[in-house]
């Protein structure tokens, strides 16, 4: 899957980053890293050098490797990797775990690896020198494979091998100037310094584009973030954007919201409950919209979600059910008790239940995992149950930001999303705990109505954009044939009756009008 996933991702990336025509913009070299090409609006500045800095383990080498591999494999732009730290074998080994076969690329003359080892203990300095040796190596490497891309990782190692910082600075300056004349697009990595961006102030020479990689630990979860600090001559996103390193390499999390270019929703998808479809006035949720179902514990949120998922399967559409609380088996069993056979949907390959406790992965990892699943499996319907559980691992603000990006992504693919959210006991039921309702196109609140010593369930559509939805609070029951809305029974004074009082009223009505099929209001 790695290969397909990667290529698919590359395709999406290149599609999304197309520049508006007629607008003058500097030439760019796509990195092929999902998301990074989006936030840089197309890639790194072509024929210039980009500084990528970050602490140890921040992903600098990986970014460089992917940049070269993408050039070599996809764009027919061979690349030179000058490694000052890792010997070639280690590089090859490390990138293999990410699905990049560097050795093959080297054998095919697509990538040239030069390992520059400068060991202070082996070198004595006597008098003036320059770095022409390095220049010659680089020039030779570039010309031997016709390289268009170069990575220097981490050139600051020279400072630990050679003592004359004055010469080094002058020579690095000369090197970066010289690289421009070679017409190559370069990544220079630098170790994060305490005073400046890099230990030896590389940012003073590399001013075209600066990318900062950062790893931070918040609430025991390590989060990686990338930021485009500077990009001369180009618009770019200034924000810190989470990214992830996994077995597909580096992926910067989608920020589709950069361009809100969704198609208009067409048609609707059934909620899975006929009466509810009617309540919306449109035959269900709008296709490609996002729906929030919030409510306290045991109000039937998951049941509503299961109906939605099951209905998709019945239309022979695929549904991805992301369970953040219960296991797949638990969900299947619970739903069987109300007559929804999710198991057969799973067997038919129309439903995938992905149960994952949020604590297992960081928030961003979740987002990436979801992305990957969606890109691989192409569901038309996605259930997130419950999103409120994500707040266990991140602040509500982070969850909101993650969800907004996820919902944007789904919207872009015209996938209808239903998210459930648990409302805390204390708050009003009109308040979703993580404040995500504003992100949603439609919002339903499920409530427990307690009166006369019993508890009944009720449902209300709080909002549904562009629909003439009902404003009534409707009682519903969970039967062994699923969730059923109960016909409304009003007393003459306008009060809506629920539970026993409704039944009593029903009986009374029946007694008073023995043959009254039209008793329903």
């Amino acid at each position, binding site marked *: 899957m790695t290969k397909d996933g990667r290529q698919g991702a590359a395709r999406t990336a290149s599609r999304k980053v197309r520049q508006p025509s007629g607008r003058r913009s500097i030439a760019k070299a796509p990195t092929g890293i999902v998301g990074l090409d989006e936030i840089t609006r197309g890639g790194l500045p072509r024929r210039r050098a980009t500084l990528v800095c970050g602490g140890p383990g921040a992903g600098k080498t990986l970014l460089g490797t992917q940049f070269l591999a993408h050039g070599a494999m996809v764009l027919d732009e061979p690349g030179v990797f000058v490694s000052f730290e890792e010997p070639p074998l280690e590089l090859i080994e490390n990138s293999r775990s990410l699905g990049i076969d560097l050795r093959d690329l080297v054998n095919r003359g697509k990538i040239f690896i*030069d390992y*520059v*080892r*400068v060991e202070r203990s*082996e*070198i*004595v*300095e*006597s*008098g*003036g*020198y*320059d*770095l*022409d*040796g*390095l*220049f*010659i*190596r680089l*020039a*030779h*490497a570039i010309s031997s494979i016709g390289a268009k891309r170069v990575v220097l990782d981490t050139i600051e190692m*020279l400072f630990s*091998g*050679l003592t004359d910082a004055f010469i080094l600075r002058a020579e690095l300056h000369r090197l970066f100037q010289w690289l421009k004349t070679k017409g190559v697009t370069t990544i220079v990595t630098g170790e994060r310094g305490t005073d400046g961006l890099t230990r030896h102030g590389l940012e003073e020479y590399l001013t075209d584009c600066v990318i900062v990689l950062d790893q931070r630990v918040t609430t025991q979860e390590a989060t990686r973030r990338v930021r485009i600090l500077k990009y001369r001559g180009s618009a770019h996103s200034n924000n810190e954007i989470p990214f992830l390193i996994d077995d597909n390499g580096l992926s910067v999390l989608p920020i589709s919201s950069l361009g809100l270019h969704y198609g208009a929703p067409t048609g609707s998808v059934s909620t899975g409950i006929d009466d509810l479809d009617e309540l919306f006035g449109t035959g269900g949720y709008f296709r490609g919209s996002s729906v929030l179902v919030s409510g306290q514990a045991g109000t039937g949120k998951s049941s509503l979600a299961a109906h939605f998922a099951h209905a998709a399967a019945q239309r022979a559409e695929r549904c991805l059910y992301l369970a953040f609380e219960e296991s797949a088996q638990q969900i299947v069993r619970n739903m069987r008790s109300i007559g929804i056979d999710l198991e057969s949907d799973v067997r038919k390959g129309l439903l995938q239940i992905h149960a994952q406790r949020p604590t297992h992965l960081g928030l961003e990892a979740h987002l990436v995992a979801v992305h990957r699943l969606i890109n691989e499996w192409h569901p038309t319907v996605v259930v997130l149950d419950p999103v409120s559980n994500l707040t266990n691992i991140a602040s509500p603000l982070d969850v909101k930001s993650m969800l907004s990006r996820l919902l944007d992504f789904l919207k872009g693919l015209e996938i209808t999303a239903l998210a459930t959210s648990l409302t805390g006991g204390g708050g009003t039921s009109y308040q979703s705990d993580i404040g995500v309702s504003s992100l949603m196109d439609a919002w339903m609140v499920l409530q427990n109505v307690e009166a006369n010593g019993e508890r009944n369930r009720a449902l209300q559509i709080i909002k549904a954009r562009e629909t003439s939805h009902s404003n009534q609070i409707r009682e519903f029951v969970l039967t062994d044939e699923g969730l059923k809305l109960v016909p409304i029974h009003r007393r003459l004074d306008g009060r809506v009756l629920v539970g026993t009082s409704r039944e009593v009223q029903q009986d009374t009505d029946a007694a008073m009008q023995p043959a009254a099929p039209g008793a329903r209001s």
Partner: protein
Amino acid sequence: MTSPLRRRSPPRRRTWRLRLYVAGQTPRSITALDNLKRLCDADIGNRYEIEVIDLLKHPHRARQDQIVAVPTLVRKLPRPMRKIIGDLSSRERVLVGLGLPPTRSR
């Protein structure tokens, strides 16, 4: 480090194999070669060979022999290999680099 070497072969009989990497006939590379010859004549006698490699003519040698700075003087023999970079204008540093005793000066 020097004692076992001396025991194996007396220093007087050793042949020194030196290699000087330069990038073209620059003033600096000429200075380096001059400095090197003078020092060898004075301190090693006639038991040395100097091979000059112009990286502009043999660019692949830079990678092969791990050359970054030029000029670079490499002591191939006696072992272990040592590297001295620069125009070799500091005589003391070169002697240290080559592993020759500073007392031999002049």
